[in-house]
């Protein structure tokens, strides 16, 4: 296809040059756009359709248009509301811990020292560990039979007895959050470190000449440079974590008693275990709408903050 289009474009007479120059970038983009159209846009449209139908693979005779019935069911679904609260908790706890620990690591790596390359390779390694493996490893670390965590937490007086926190409804969410934080610190450390290294040295020299102390230099130079990067990274990462259901699926399957169920894991369970594609798609629409609202809210806040200063 692409080859033929190129050949045609080459043979085109001089008068049609403008068409050729218009078509050329799209020729290079076409494989990407076709793939995305077929495997993202088409399924998205099909999914929107599913949200208003009964589509149960285990129950092929119960089919047809049901209007807003799924959405009414969602409004009355206690698991949905629980999963919504859990999603907020999961997202912001993971995000804040990843960010603070990642920022700390970036500041530590932001200077030359002996063996820096090796240290960097080791502290960034968790990023390369497949997420399902990170989940399984932490599930094993929290298991009192083979893992040390329950015993340590018990010795520190944080647990009354060395039990698996993944089986404790009140504490289970900390399991996936711990795995997520461990796994996500390198991402923040790397992006923040890149931003730190892009700060021109002259800025610090100028600030020092103006008599700025260490704290003032950190506040007015480092932070001022970091804030734009941090803001966009946090915004995008929030959405990414809110969509990230792998760790919950691997570590708890949403249990015990749905106490760790988050929206993406609930959607996945509905599609994978119950094979109820209609309800899963309706839940997906709600998730999409919430993410959209969040993005608009953040952009609006940014606009207001900008005009305030």
């Amino acid at each position, binding site marked *: 296809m692409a080859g033929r289009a190129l050949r045609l474009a080459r043979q085109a007479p001089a008068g049609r040059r403008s068409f050729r120059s218009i078509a050329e970038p799209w020729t290079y983009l076409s494989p990407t756009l076709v793939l995305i159209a077929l495997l993202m846009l088409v399924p998205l449209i099909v999914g929107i359709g599913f949200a208003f139908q009964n589509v149960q693979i285990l129950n092929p005779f119960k089919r047809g248009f049901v209007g807003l019935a799924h959405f009414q069911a969602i409004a009355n679904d206690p698991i949905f509301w629980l999963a919504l609260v859990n999603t907020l908790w999961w997202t912001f706890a993971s995000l804040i811990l990843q960010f603070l620990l990642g920022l700390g690591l970036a500041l530590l790596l932001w200077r030359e020292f002996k063996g820096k390359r090796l240290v960097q390779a080791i502290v*960034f390694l968790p990023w390369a560990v497949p997420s399902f493996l990170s989940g399984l490893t932490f599930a094993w670390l929290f298991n009192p039979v083979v893992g040390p965590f329950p015993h340590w937490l018990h010795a520190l007086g944080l647990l009354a007895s060395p039990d698996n926190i993944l089986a404790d409804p009140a504490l289970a969410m900390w399991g996936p959050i711990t795995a997520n934080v461990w796994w996500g610190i390198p991402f923040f450390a790397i992006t923040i470190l890149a931003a730190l290294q892009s700060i021109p040295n002259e800025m610090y020299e100028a600030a020092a000449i103006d008599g700025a102390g260490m704290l003032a230099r950190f506040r007015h130079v480092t932070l001022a440079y970091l804030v734009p990067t941090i803001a966009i990274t946090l915004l995008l990462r929030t959405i990414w974590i809110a969509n990230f259901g792998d760790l919950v699926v691997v570590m708890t399957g949403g249990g015990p008693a749905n106490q760790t169920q988050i929206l*993406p894991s609930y959607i996945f369970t509905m599609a994978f275990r119950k094979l109820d594609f209609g309800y899963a798609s309706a839940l997906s629409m709600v998730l999409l709408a919430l993410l959209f609202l969040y993005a608009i809210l953040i952009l609006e806040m940014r606009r207001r903050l900008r005009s305030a200063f």
Partner: protein
Amino acid sequence: MVVAGTSQLRRRLGFFGHWLALALYVLAALFPLFWLVKIAVTPTDLLFGEGIRLWPSSTTLGNFATVLRATDFPWYFLNSVIVSLCTAAAVTVVASLSGYALSRFAFRWKNAVAFFLLLTQIFPLVMLIAPIYRLMTPLGLVDSLMGLILVYTAYNTPFATFLMQSFFEGIPKGLEEAAMIDGCTRFQALWRVILPLTLPGMGATLGFVFTAAWSELLFALMLISTETRMTFPVGLLTFVSKFSVDWGQMTAAAVLALIPACAFFAVIQRYLVQGLTAGAVKG
């Protein structure tokens, strides 16, 4: 003298604090992986008796031997290698073309295309699992490695496009202009002059996509059901839910799954910054 003394003390303390804090990060990064290896080399009879000792009194490679000989893990490993390599190769080709377009052409809707590609990066892919399953069933792409490769290729292309774009930006435009003046078409110039120069970038893209495809779990769980077609994540999770007491074999298999990921990490480590900031959201 006194002033010099305190400032030296402060520097020493600062050095020590810096070193201590880094040591904690190193420890935290390595400990879970160390523990995984530790369980894998512990003989089963010692596992329960010695509890949470840091290193068993005797070690064995028996768990690895059993996993490789008596289970389906070699299948899972092979399937994952096939899927990840094919995905990585396909994505690199497709993303090289689109990354080149974004880097070299000024055209209408260019910003719209870039924004659209960025949008796909924060899109909740989990919501496509059911429709994809439904759409792929009549096409015979369910329970086939081909189906997985198609899905992974599509979902990794946007991020890889941004990555390749950033590599193309580093190559002077004058190069292919000179080649085109010498009579090359643009595609020939790209193929003969530009691509050889982006080989390291293409290698990095290959590595990033391989790692992503190697880790994908949810689509593979949904789409694959036959034991011999499972990828590593699905196989391991199935094994865990079936034989959840065979700690040695589970962890030995997990260690095996870690090896390719670590190998590719070593390859792409130099490009981490570029990779993670391309599209700004790659996990």
